[in-house]
């Protein structure tokens, strides 16, 4: 009796915690509301299964508890029931997987009008590179990294000369415009994670990975590193500032003047 009751309380308590606890995701600030919807679908389906199974267990524990004279039913198999449950499970799984795969397709397909930027990780800070007036990022290589050229940007590539480098500072982005971030690391694996953007991807040394999103509201958001990268891991923070186009433009021009000054002498 007590066991059945506690099982019921576990089921009800879990649902109550889900509905009324104060801990929930951050208000979204990007186009990935689809991801949130997929999570909600998954919560509904898995939550229903959890409650149904635990309540059924509680029922069995109460109804079929040992009493003198009770005999269990001998029934090795029940083909119909087993196949019926298998098919229902298959349908439930498909109901979660199908929308998931559609959204994943969007997640990895970058829109053509996206602005390409670069996000660079190193122990334990973030740097960023934005294209200058030509709209293109120049070539970069880890082997070109030096104290004066912390991202290893190639001085032989004309596209690189107007690139805007932001070291250890804030990344600014215009609201409403899709951005494709190329992700690089100079030392170990890091992970670019902004909870409000629902976006996350590893930065792996020796290769370039990418992620895209469209900021949908202005504000200041925290960048966290989400892949263990050594003792400074939890200190590796950064900031994304999403602004209206005009404010963003002003910031970009200010940054551009500083970056040109840094790269120009070596480019001659």
């Amino acid at each position, binding site marked *: 009796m007590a066991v059945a009751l506690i099982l019921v309380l576990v089921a009800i308590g879990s649902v109550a915690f889900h509905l009324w606890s104060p801990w929930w995701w951050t208000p979204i600030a990007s186009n990935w509301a689809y991801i949130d919807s997929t999570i909600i679908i998954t919560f509904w389906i898995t939550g229903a299964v959890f409650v149904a199974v635990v309540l059924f*267990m509680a029922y069995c*524990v109460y109804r079929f508890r040992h009493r003198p004279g009770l005999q269990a039913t001998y029934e090795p198999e029940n083909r119909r029931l087993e196949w019926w449950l298998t098919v229902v499970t298959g349908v439930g799984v498909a109901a979660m997987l199908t929308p998931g795969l559609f959204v994943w397709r969007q997640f*990895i397909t970058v829109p053509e009008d996206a602005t390409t930027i670069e996000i660079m990780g190193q122990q334990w800070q973030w740097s960023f590179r934005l294209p200058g007036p030509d709209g293109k990022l120049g070539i970069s290589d*880890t082997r070109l990294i030096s104290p004066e050229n912390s991202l290893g940007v190639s001085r032989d590539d004309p596209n690189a000369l107007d690139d805007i480098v932001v070291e250890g500072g804030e990344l600014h982005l215009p609201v409403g415009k899709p951005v494709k971030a190329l992700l690089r690391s100079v030392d170990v694996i890091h992970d670019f994670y902004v909870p409000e953007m629902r*976006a996350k991807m590893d930065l792996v040394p020796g290769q370039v990975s990418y992620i895209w999103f469209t900021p949908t509201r202005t504000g200041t958001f925290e960048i966290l590193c989400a892949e263990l990268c050594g003792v400074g891991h939890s200190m590796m923070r950064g900031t994304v500032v999403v602004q209206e186009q005009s404010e963003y433009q002003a910031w970009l021009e200010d940054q551009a003047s500083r970056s040109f000054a840094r790269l120009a002498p070596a480019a001659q």
Partner: protein
Amino acid sequence: MTDVPFVHVGPSAESDDVELYHPHSWVTKYVFSQDAKIIAVQYSLTALSVGLIALVLSWLMRLQLGFPGVFSFIDANAYYQFITMHGMMMVVYVLTALFLGGFGNYLIPLMVGARDMVFPYVNMLSFWVYLLAVLILVASFFAPGGPTGAGWTLYPPQAILSGTPGGQDWGIILMLVSLMVFIIGFTMGGLNYVVTVLQARARGMTLMRMPLTVWGIFTASFMALLAFPALFVGAVMMLFDRALGTSFFLPAIVEMGQPLERSGGSPLLFQHLFWFFGHPEVYIVALPAFGIVSDLISTHARRNIFGYRMMVWALLAIGALSFVVWAHHMYVSGMNPYFGFFFATTTLIIAIPTAIKVYNWILTLWRGDIHLNVPMLFALAFIVTFLNGGLTGLFLGNVVVDVPLSDTMFVVAHFHMVMGVAPILVIFGAIYHWYPKMTGRMLDDTLGKIHFWVTFLGAYAIFFPMHYLGLMGVPRRYHEIGEMAFVPASAHSLNAFITIAALVVGATQLLFVFNLFWSLRHGRPSGGNPWRATTLEWQTPETPPPHGNWGKETPVVYRWAYDYSVPGAPEDFIPQNQPGTQTMAGTAHG
């Protein structure tokens, strides 16, 4: 499958007892023993000791997370060393060793009606090599620089660089060497488990009459023999990278401003090798638990396991599928994103055979005669926690849902629920269940019930709310959350609550350890078959069974393992070795 093939090798049933080479001295009987049952106890005690170390480590890391800054000796270095050693110890040196080396050794020969494992000497070596691996691992606590703090996944490049504790000291080297030694030891044991099941079963014990415990351990051992070599290769390559200057996993990198003389390696290669081992590993721990819990539920509900054949096929399907899902750990690793479609699909397909197992467990309860003995309580709690952890796996397996959740506390909560709490509840249930066979005495019931309720409800209180910290965005492996704008103050209270729950649950395990030793002398004598179970280990002539298990003749098997409450039978169970009318199922499964 209709007639009974007489699969039998090794000593024939009529052989004289003298052919069994019984040990003569205390050392050969209890130390360098070749008796699988003694080896099982050696494996279990070693694994439980490692488990206690890992428990203390989890306390220390929870103290830091619940009360950051209060305990100054837990700095970032120490914190990362604690989480790394806790994780690797629990997954490999506790759970794998306990299920396969412990329960596998004890139960396989007894349950299939064999006298011992087929290669007893190799079996003995397996334990001593395992012990060596444990000693190497523990030695890293005392090595210069301390143990590695690379996280249990040991991802290079950070695992072998100076920014990680132990990366340029002894820590990572000892970890890799210990893993290699462990795998060598496991291979010797694993071959034994597989060959014994295939070759040494008693007469009449067809594969489809085997208890699900044996099926689970057998499938898991087979998988481990295929999966561990991938980790072995990864460990050798990383050791070369660390000690010999090769570049298997290191591209051109600049470490703390200094370019390293390496180029051309791939950090992702290690991840593929690691998870090719690492995902089957989850099921290497889960499948023995599935098997054992099936037998616990059936025995204590006095009812045949529901859908036995489906249960066997589901085990095999899960085992096979688990080799094609590994990259679901790598959705945000920067691998080719098109892999996501394939691995999400295979991962969610695995949910189907897994769900079948859950249905069949609860359908075994349905219309049963449920005795709420301590092993049964643990089995019920296993279903709840495994179900919970399995369902959150559907979030993480579904590639796009994984993006916001991966590398957060949601993942930590998920895998602790599904491969920490759930299998450990089965281990406890199994110990309460088989302790009488091992010692001839029952474990104390009252202590058992206290242990059960605090462990089950406490563990649920630790890990269920933790999912919501991850949903909020709190990353895992953070020494300090510190100031995060999106984390409300209430989340810090939740962390403190989780820490207190962890301390209480951990302390309760000492009650269990006390019970283990106390009941050795003071437990109620159990007799040979206290649970009135059908399987062969309960039918031995003596309890605890001596070397050779069966006296003069090995048993002959006439029926499947689940003849409980057969209509018309005088008792509510019919042992597998009892001749007589074949039940309907006995024919179907013979």
